[in-house]
């Protein structure tokens, strides 16, 4: 075999190996669980990626109609969550921290212009807004310290002690779900009022300079309770919480029988939150 031919074969072989290895190396660069292009049977529940092998994937359906029928309910969900999670109130928009809030249709679904004869009716709806707990979360991909991570149950959680406060996750989140502690949340305002009105000793307060957001009440899920907002709305069933991977769960049944929408589905994040408008 002449040397040119041998060289050619060597290069061809190496190229083939690189071609096989490259996609898998690239996928490992992306976050493990979410398979990049999963189109087949996993299309259920909003075309999310492959099912987590551990089984559970917590998800939620938000029935906006029921919140409209029960004025004040959405606000109660917000205040309950913020109270038990020691979310501070700085009294201004710049420093604002929120885990869950009520917003209008045009803000929650900014790309959805398909209802152009009914903007007023839609914008008066109280739409509960919180972290989507994406199956393919850009914030987890962006975080340089794994301070934000996906639990085996599909919850996007945070380690406040590891967060360096680079706010890359805030730039990465397509839903504006994340807040930063621009100042000390344990402090007091000029009038001596603490930013955390009544501290809940069962949940940690945060320190200045870290990011925080809705944690789907992992601390409650861990002891077999449902998230606090779901508990508040339990009587009206305005919030249905459960395992998206369990076909028998209530949330799966609702999703099978009802027309629901997701926020920014084109971003490929596969949210675990669904809305009935």
């Amino acid at each position, binding site marked *: 075999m002449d040397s040119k031919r041998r060289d050619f074969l060597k290069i061809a072989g190496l190229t083939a190996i690189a071609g096989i290895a490259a996609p898998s190396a690239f996928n490992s660069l992306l976050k493990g669980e979410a398979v990049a292009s999963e189109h087949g049977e996993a299309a259920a529940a909003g075309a999310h990626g492959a099912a987590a092998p551990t089984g559970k994937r917590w998800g939620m359906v938000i029935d906006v109609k029921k919140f409209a029928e029960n004025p004040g309910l959405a606000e109660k969900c917000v205040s309950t969550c913020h109270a038990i999670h020691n979310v501070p109130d700085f009294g201004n928009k710049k420093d604002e921290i929120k885990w869950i809030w009520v917003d209008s249709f045009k803000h929650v679904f900014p790309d959805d212009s398909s209802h152009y004869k009914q903007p007023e009716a839609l914008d008066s709806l109280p739409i509960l807004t919180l972290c989507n707990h994406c199956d393919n979360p850009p914030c987890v991909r962006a975080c340089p310290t794994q*301070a934000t991570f996906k639990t085996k149950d599909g919850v996007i959680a945070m380690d406040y002690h590891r967060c360096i406060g680079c706010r890359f996750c805030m730039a990465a989140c397509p839903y504006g779900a994340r807040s930063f502690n621009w100042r000390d949340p344990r402090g007091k305002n000029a009038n001596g009022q603490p930013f955390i009105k009544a501290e809940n000793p069962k949940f940690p307060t945060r320190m200045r300079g870290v990011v925080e957001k809705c944690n789907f009440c992992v601390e409650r899920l861990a002891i077999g309770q449902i998230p606090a907002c779901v508990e508040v709305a339990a009587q009206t069933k305005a919030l249905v919480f459960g395992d998206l991977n369990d076909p028998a769960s209530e949330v799966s049944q609702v999703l099978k029988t009802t027309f629901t929408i997701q926020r920014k589905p084109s971003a490929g994040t596969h949210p675990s939150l669904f809305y009935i408008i």
Partner: protein
Amino acid sequence: MIEKALKGSTGYWVWMLFLLSIMGVGGLCYVQQFNYGLGITGMSRDVTWGVYISQFTFLVGVAAGGLMLVLPYYIHNYKAFGRIVILGEFMAIAAIAMCLMFIIADLGQPMRAMNVLLHPTPHSMLFWDMIVLNGYLVLNILCGWVVLQSEYKGIKYPKWIKPFIYLSIPWAISIHTVTAFLYCGLPGRHFWLTAILAPRFLASAFAAGPALLMVIAMILKRTTKFDVGREAQDKLVTIIGYAAMLNFFFLGCEFFVAYYSQFPGHMHTLDYLFWGLGHGDQVYNNLVPFMRASVVMGLAGIALIFVSRAKQSDGLLVVSCLLIFFAFWIDKGLGLVLGGFVPNMMDQVTEYYPSAQELGITAAIWATGFFILSILYKVAISVKLEKEA
């Protein structure tokens, strides 16, 4: 060799004291920020990165710009860059030092910065940025210092440094590519979500970095006996001019995609930056004068830089380089990062204005960069002049 930085004219010491005073004031601002938190800046829940990160992004480009000297000199054996190449390497050191300081200034918990090393996370682009920036810093300190020291001793640089010099060339590309990947890999921000971001970063870097270098070289020509030489000057004009043109070509591509496709997300930020974004009954346009000035200055700079060469006018050369440098400083040091946050993810608009403390810290980091640069240049030029005398 470093002792050369301790001997200088009155002008040198006045300049260094001036920089130190800015560093002192900014240092006090940082103490305030450290004690209060980042709330002392103009950043908010909606605009979560401000001048710190935008300066960082721009300065990565200044650092990468050194490539435009290293590559012709070491790969193509372009001898005319013999005197200026060390200036490029040392400028990269100062620029990367500023980048790292800007990142630390922007961290909510700077004491935890080492968590990036303790918990290495390959799927985060910030992890890779840390690697390439620090690697580039080490490479430039190593290559610049070893080559200069050999010159000081009157010998040719050792052979073992060559692989490091060659490595620094793709590495320069990587620092700006990975920095672009910080932005263009985020699914929610249409303005950043463009494959042309890394090429655009590189084009502006290869114009802005050498432009700043040229201005400094002209100052040195006036204040010291150090002259980079006419041929090097003329060649740099070509490099700066074409890189700047390439940048505007890429910017034009962005405009075409946004406005021809009429895709709302792609148009919004360009609207905000160049025309003002109408939202409800208000128009948001606080960056419009800057961005328009950036385009005018950049195009004028390109035209003038070639005129300056035709007329062999150093004065015009300095003016055109300053125009190009500030044009790209606005484009990347302001518009690119701040614009990405408008509108926010809920289609609302929050405009950002930096606070006094924030500007103080920013000025101090720039001053620190120039302080490092002045020391390095003092050493380099003293060695060069001594050897030639």
